[in-house]
């Protein structure tokens, strides 16, 4: 039996945390703030809706939100470019080391931050430590009255009270694409699939793909001079690149 604890397991053939495997490029110049990604994410990932009171208390379960801020005062006022914000799938994620239950762990295989629901005991340390504030906690079991439950995506766990959740980069789609590709004896092609947000985006502002392969669209876009990573100075190595206007 091989040794599971072996540190050398991160072999040369695998992607490294800094570079990552899957990544996203979000063009702030193109994002129109239309919320199609927000709705698409909710539909794909069995997100619960929590109602007016709880959402007002900041307990809504958005895995992706669109940030906009105001600059200046009337009439010289401007809204900052819309920024779709979801889990940045950091290479060195601040959420990971603080989990006492090893529920939020780093996937060496996919270079994603995983949330293992059955390990989560609900300390919410990860949510507190996330500089991007992208984690949502299930404060209650949220009701989805019959027959709304017919819409559940069978590929995604329906979370219950007391666990933390967050964007997974639609790992179920990654898995499906990889499985299909493996069944057909080939690699996953660039652009073969996309997470729900990128697939819906009417402006094509969200592009998804392999960031460790230089020829993919997402790698080409991320290399542009107008690419920035958010809170990069924290050393988190986020795998989402934002493109500035211009």
């Amino acid at each position, binding site marked *: *039996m*091989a040794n599971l604890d072996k540190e050398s*397991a991160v072999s040369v*053939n695998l992607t490294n945390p800094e570079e990552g495997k899957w990544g996203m490029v979000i063009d702030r110049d193109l994002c129109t703030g239309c919320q199609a990604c927000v709705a698409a994410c909710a539909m794909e990932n069995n997100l619960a809706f929590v109602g007016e009171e709880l959402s007002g208390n900041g307990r809504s379960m958005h895995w992706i939100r669109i940030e906009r801020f105001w600059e200046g005062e009337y009439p010289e006022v401007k809204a900052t470019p819309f920024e779709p914000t979801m889990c940045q799938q950091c290479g060195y994620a601040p959420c990971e080391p603080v989990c006492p239950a090893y529920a939020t762990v780093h996937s060496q295989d996919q270079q994603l931050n*995983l949330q*293992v629901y059955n390990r989560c005991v609900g300390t919410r340390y990860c949510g507190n430590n996330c500089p991007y504030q992208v984690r949502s906690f299930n404060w209650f079991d949220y009701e989805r009255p019959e027959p709304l439950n017919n819409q559940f995506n069978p590929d995604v*766990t329906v979370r219950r009270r007391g666990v933390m959740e967050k964007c997974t980069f639609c790992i*179920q789609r990654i898995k499906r694409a990889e499985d299909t590709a493996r069944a057909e004896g080939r690699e996953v092609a660039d652009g073969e699939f996309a997470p729900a947000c990128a697939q819906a985006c009417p402006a094509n502002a969200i592009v998804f793909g392999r960031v460790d392969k230089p020829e993919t669209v997402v790698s080409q876009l991320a290399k542009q001079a107008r690419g920035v990573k958010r809170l990069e100075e924290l050393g988190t190595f986020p795998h989402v690149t934002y493109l500035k206007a211009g």
Partner: protein
Amino acid sequence: MIKKLLSWLASPLGKIGLLILSLIVISGAVWGIGQTQTVPEQPIDFPHSLHVGLGVQCLYCHPGSLKGPVSGLPTQTKCWGCHQQIAKTKTSALLAPLVQAVENNQPIQWVPVAMVPDFVRYNHRPHIAAGLNCEDCHGDVSKMTVYENPQVLNMGWCLNCHVEQAGEDEEKLIRLTDCGTCHY
């Protein structure tokens, strides 16, 4: 208060109480484990042994396993395809639920037995593609009537096999033991 309790626990009566309490917990746990491993009652005591013995392939009734996550239960029209030609179908008490279901156009309510624990995303296809046979996990079904798991389907059992499969291939080991392989 706590000191009092501790000193009481140290007394002979306390020790007996502790023993009784732990016995209750353990027997509860044993009963619970027993429950999870007991074969649930099925609407039809389906004799797998007979069907496999007649040479019916697993994939004839459970073709989904070849293509994707779920092997699937056969539709009752599939059952009926053979059974309507078998005279005994109409008379056998064992088969009455099938006849009833077909006549009333009602689905049969099966209780799945080979289930992985909650929060696991299991996919049959890669397992079969990796060269596993049905009996490697499901046991010798030709010797069972109502299906029964040959072992506990838990994470330790999955991981043991995954680690064996990976062998010395470290990349494969990472892929097969990554949390995200099964949990998302």
